[in-house]
């Protein structure tokens, strides 16, 4: 037990949390934007997965930033497809989302087998690249707190810093720009912005495109930093956990950050625990993020219901 506590309060564990949180946070922000626009984006999982594979395959032939952009673009394209079927062809958006998930689960394995020449499990024989870490070792020159600062802040992925910035950017967009107001209006009560002459369907489409782009970016981080290379089903439910994180974060960017950090912390725990305890079965450790998601969802729902009861709404 002592070893666990020592591990948990170490700087390396903090770095691990940031690493596990980043893909979740990006997907959660994507889910948040879609959700506020009135569309529950259940396809985050599939968008991430396709983002992973696209980033890995492109990174074999191009520099890392092109690969990251490709992952982002793949997600955005899926968002556009989703919007086309949901809004233009009036399909149920949940079903469209699951169609994308099924496409991703089968399609990535198919594309992986084609790209690797038959390997259906991993991209191990592809020379894929990684997203560089930001080296802030100059911080240790600061007297006193320098070394501590360095051990906490140095070594994160470029995309982690981008994700942190995006939390602020999304908040600013949602609450300080007219477009953010439009988006929230469209999600809240579409008839009102429609009557005010705001292009409702265009906004919804854009929100799904951005949502997909963020999920694809999360996929790029997952396949080019957390792990380098693609593994079949490597997102392992992260997109669905992100969906839970949107709800848990009370549909607010800062809440999304906190919820993603919570799930990221438990995932990090699942990463370090096998090294510390040999007697806890791996299956139970792998279960942790899912159990925590359900527990958080239930607790949050209880709280939300209490809040409603207080306001006298039944």
């Amino acid at each position, binding site marked *: 037990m002592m070893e666990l506590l020592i591990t948990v309060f170490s700087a390396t564990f903090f770095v691990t949390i940031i690493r596990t949180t980043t893909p979740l946070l990006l997907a959660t922000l994507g889910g948040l934007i879609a959700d506020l626009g*009135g569309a*529950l984006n259940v396809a985050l999982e599939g968008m991430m997965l396709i983002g992973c594979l696209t980033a890995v395959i492109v990174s074999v032939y191009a520099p890392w930033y092109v690969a990251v952009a490709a992952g982002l673009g793949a997600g955005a394209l899926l968002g556009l497809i989703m919007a086309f079927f*949901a809004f233009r062809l009036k*399909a149920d958006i949940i079903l469209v989302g699951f169609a994308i998930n099924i496409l991703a689960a089968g399609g990535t394995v198919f594309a992986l087998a084609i790209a690797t020449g038959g390997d259906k499990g991993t991209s191990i024989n592809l020379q894929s690249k990684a997203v560089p870490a930001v080296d802030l070792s100059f911080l240790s020159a600061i007297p006193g707190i320098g070394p501590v600062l360095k051990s906490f802040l140095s070594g994160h992925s470029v995309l982690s810093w981008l994700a942190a910035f995006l939390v602020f950017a999304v908040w600013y967009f949602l609450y300080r720009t007219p477009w953010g107001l439009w988006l929230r209006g469209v*999600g809240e009560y579409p008839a009102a912005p429609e009557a005010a002459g705001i292009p409702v369907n265009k906004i*919804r489409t854009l929100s799904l495109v951005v949502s997909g782009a963020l999920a694809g970016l999360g996929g790029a981080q997952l396949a080019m930093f957390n792990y380098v290379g693609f593994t079949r089903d490597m997102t392992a439910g992260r997109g669905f956990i992100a969906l839970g994180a949107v709800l848990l974060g009370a549909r607010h960017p800062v809440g999304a950050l906190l919820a993603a950090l919570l799930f990221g912390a438990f995932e990090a725990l699942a990463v370090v625990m096998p090294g510390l305890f040999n007697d806890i079965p791996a*299956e*139970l450790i792998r*279960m942790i993020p899912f159990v925590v998601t*359900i527990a958080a969802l239930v607790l949050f729902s209880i709280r939300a219901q209490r809040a409603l009861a207080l306001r006298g709404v039944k």
Partner: protein
Amino acid sequence: MSNIPAIDRNSRWKTIRREVGRAVGALAIALLVTFIVVLLTSKAPLEAITQLLTAPASKPRTIGLWLDDVAKLTITGLAFSLVFQARQFAMGVQGQVYIGALAASYVALSPLGASWAGIPLGITAAMLAGAIYGFLPGIAKAKLGANEIVSSLMLNYIAIEVCNFLVRTSLPKPQPGVLTTNDFPDSAVFPQLIKFDGLNVTRLDLGLVFALIAVLVVWFALYRTSWGLKLRLVGHNARFAEYSGIKATFIMVSAMTASGALGGLLGSMFVQGQGYGKLTVLFEGGLAFEGILVAIVARSRPLAVPIVALFYGYLRQGAQLMNIRTDVPAEVIGVVTAIIILLVSSSFSLNFITRLFKRSPAPAAAPATVGGAAK
């Protein structure tokens, strides 16, 4: 008076014709895309496409495999139809399959499994376990408003890990380190339906009978009982149903529970069927989620589910055989599935391309989602 049923019958035929037309159109487009993909990626595209389209019907053995898939697809299609008709998007069939299979395995590997009670008790245990597993997200939604999509998906992952864990550790197995249990005693394995010398239709077992019974039971429950009427009303308009005195939350929970029982039954059909006759990790191979396609193409109508399953099962089996015999991976079927779901669940019709270019202004947007569930 007398012509009303005639009109009714006419419009029903028209609906059926329209739906069949849409399904066939979607299938044709999906196959076209598949052919293009195969042409671009395979070294022997013609061979691959021939295998996809003809292999399942080529031998009695493959016909057996195909019909076994059909039975399983029918059950998962029914499970999704039940919740879709109530407009709940519970995605927990996969989890229910694993939990049901675990329950059935515990019965089959116990002393009871070696007696005549092995099959009936195994099925009952599986259905009960599945029902409980389906009940959980239902009650969490009804009492707390917890989103059923997220909770049921999380329960899927948990069930898979529980199954992995128990198979690896506590369940009896032939030798340590193997990720399967002991073979079930013969009395706990569904008997083969057809046994001819030379006509080796393995795999075709009692599960097919259960699937057909399940079709009739679900149809009867949905269209010939007051529970079914209430369920469909809740699905059409939950608020209206609530105003007319129907306990919408009770109906939602009971629909998810009944669907869970079907999921559990599917679990027992997997492990107690001729295909396995034992519990293996990850035995389900993603089949449970394909029920979404079956339910959508069948428009959640129980009587249409086995017909859709028949066609889709053929393609699925064709893809597996193509995978074995040529260089095209079976996962290409995922592309087919996704395209069919997208086209059938949308307002796609064969002249939809012409409508696309008309660019009529979009009609006043009703909330196009059930995202309301998330609020």
